[in-house]
């Protein structure tokens, strides 16, 4: 499979929504016409300057883009190696990269005349972003969230409610992100006429993986321009964390055809990637399967039953990964590694102390890998890590994990 690299890594998906064998449209017949309609609408919008003008305006004045590319001087000194830059997507409105994509999908929903927006959420960041943009445009918003996550992410649940969204706790299955996504699909199949499903990551049936990637690619496009301006050349190394993989794909995609740029995705290794399967590292610890509308690497047992992931970060706690990552993994264009809960917790504290930035637990995984990698690289190696979310939501989890009393 790896013998003949393509001329470009940026042309996918094909007309069937495939990245190699990954991706596709594995949905029930009821949803198929809706997905085709969405694809048609997105194809139109993609080349419509008015659509992108509206996006740019909202990105600039509502989200606060471009997010800074920040030279992390003390972190660089502390680690003693590569020159580390942080792409500050945690400074976006709502505190994470999620809103980049939500804005695009809600503008599409408006173009399609849909009045009711549904979304799934794990940690609550995508739910908060969706509730926010729905409030901004006066749309009904229903967020499905595993009952377990509702319990452990109370501040975000309250935020969504303040923003006027209805939060539906999902008790089916094992009551986490995967089950929330099942329940959102069940709602969509029931309310096909007026409902738009706003997926939070680069997964799901075609066209979602490509569409979400395109909306998140603003991260990589800005990084390219900002690095050219700061250093007069492209970065040498990119690092981002991966649950479903939307912040990583957003940073990586504009650089895929620059062979000198080394690209690394960091999965959540939980308690360690081994036969206990107490992790959420689909690429390092899973195998290809079909779930939630696409073929991709999945955590599953020998009989093809889906396993529950584990990660200290609720946002990475998903047994699958976007199909384009699966393809980039098999093609060898992107390196995928994993770090454990404990390593992420250490990195979380390192960022607080050296840079005065409280990171979300998700990018703390990326930082944990940077902490291992940077010391092995020369000082002229320009490394960009995507700081994709801020950590206010995680302080309770971290306090519990390090044994602190609030």
């Amino acid at each position, binding site marked *: 499979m790896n013998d003949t690299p393509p001329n470009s890594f940026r042309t996918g998906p094909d007309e*069937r929504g495939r990245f190699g064998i990954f991706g*596709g*449209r*594995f*949905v*029930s*017949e*009821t*949803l*198929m*016409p*809706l997905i085709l309609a969405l694809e048609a609408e997105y194809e139109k919008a993609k080349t419509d300057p008015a659509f992108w003008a509206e996006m740019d305006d909202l990105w600039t004045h509502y989200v606060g883009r471009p997010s800074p590319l920040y030279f992390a001087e003390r972190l660089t000194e502390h680690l003693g190696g590569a020159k580390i830059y942080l792409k500050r997507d945690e400074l976006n409105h709502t505190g994470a990269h999620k809103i980049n994509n939500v804005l695009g999908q809600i503008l599409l929903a408006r173009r399609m005349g849909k009045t009711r927006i549904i979304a799934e959420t794990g940690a609550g960041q995508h739910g908060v972003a969706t509730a926010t943009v729905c409030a901004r445009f006066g749309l009904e918003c229903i967020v499905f969230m595993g009952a377990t996550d509702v319990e452990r992410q109370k501040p975000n649940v309250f935020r969504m409610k303040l923003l006027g969204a209805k939060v539906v706790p999902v008790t*089916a*299955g094992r009551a986490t992100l*995967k*089950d929330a996504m*099942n329940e959102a*699909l*069940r709602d969509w*199949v*029931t*309310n*096909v006429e007026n409902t738009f499903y706003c997926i939070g990551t680069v997964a799901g049936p075609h066209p979602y993986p490509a569409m979400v990637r395109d909306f998140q690619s603003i991260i990589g496009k800005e990084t390219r321009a900002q690095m050219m301006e700061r250093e007069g050349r492209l970065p040498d190394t990119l690092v981002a964390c991966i649950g479903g993989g939307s912040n990583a794909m957003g940073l990586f995609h504009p650089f895929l055809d620059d062979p000198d740029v080394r690209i690394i995705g960091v999965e959540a290794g939980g308690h360690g990637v081994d036969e206990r399967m107490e992790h959420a590292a689909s690429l390092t610890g899973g195998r290809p*399967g*079909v*779930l*939630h*509308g696409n*073929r991709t690497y*999945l955590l*599953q047992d*020998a*009989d*093809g*039953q*889906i396993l529950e992931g584990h990660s200290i970060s609720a946002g990475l706690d998903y047994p699958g990964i976007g199909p384009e990552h699966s393809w980039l993994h098999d093609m060898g264009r992107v390196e995928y590694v994993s770090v454990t809960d404990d390593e992420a917790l250490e990195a979380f504290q390192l960022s607080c102390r050296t840079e005065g930035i409280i990171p979300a637990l998700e990018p703390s995984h990326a930082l944990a890998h940077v902490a291992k990698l940077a010391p092995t690289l020369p000082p002229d190696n320009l490394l960009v890590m995507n700081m994709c979310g801020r950590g206010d939501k995680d302080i309770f989890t971290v306090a519990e994990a390090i044994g602190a009393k609030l």
Partner: protein
Amino acid sequence: MSRIEAKFASLKAEGKAAFVSFIMAGDPDYETSLEIVKGLPAAGVDVIELGMPFTDPMADGPAIQLAGQRALGAGTTLRRVLDMVGAFRAGDQTTPIILMGYYNPIYSMGVDAFLAAAKEAGVDGLIVVDLPPEEDEELCLPANRAGLHFIRLATPTTDDRRLPAVARNTSGFVYYVSITGITGAASANAACVAPEVERVRAATGLPVCVGFGIKTPEAAAAIARVADGVVVGSAIVERIGQGARPGEVLDFVRSLADGAHGA
């Protein structure tokens, strides 16, 4: 002529609609489930749909989700589902069995290995919810080559433009999903369903069975008047979930079958 085609031909000659029942294989355990399956033909079931349990049944309501969890909890695997079909087939050569479920367990076993084992066990057809016509190369075409019917779902959102795609590569019968929604949800309305059945029958030339939201003998009778067959699943599975003994489950199935056949 396949078992499915023979069954629909003989029912047509008798002027009857088919009664199709769904239960989840291995729910609540292998032995109980096999006992129920073996009793279905005598209870009036014309076509048996046997569920292959999956952890993430995205098109199913709570009743069938829970049935799948019970089956998985009892250690049901796809191999055991095929064992069950083989055990049934040893004593019944005429009642068609259709396996219904989701693609990943099949993909995990390997499509060719699965089809060979299914054919060997005596399976007649497949309904795989998350494989629309756009993904026919995955399983539908190989199944057809292996001599298994690939039965398609048609839904209220399947408009006239899509019907030819739905009709392509399918055989046996078409399963018309009477509502937009999940299994066991809202009630199906016979008056609304009738013209849809006509539309699907005209486009495919196949018998049309109607399912989703049919829960009582009366509802089964009403649908049987306008369709070639009636499918009941959640209402039966709910009784198994409540701990009903096989005899009680089969009594309920008989009342549904009588409703469907008496029309």
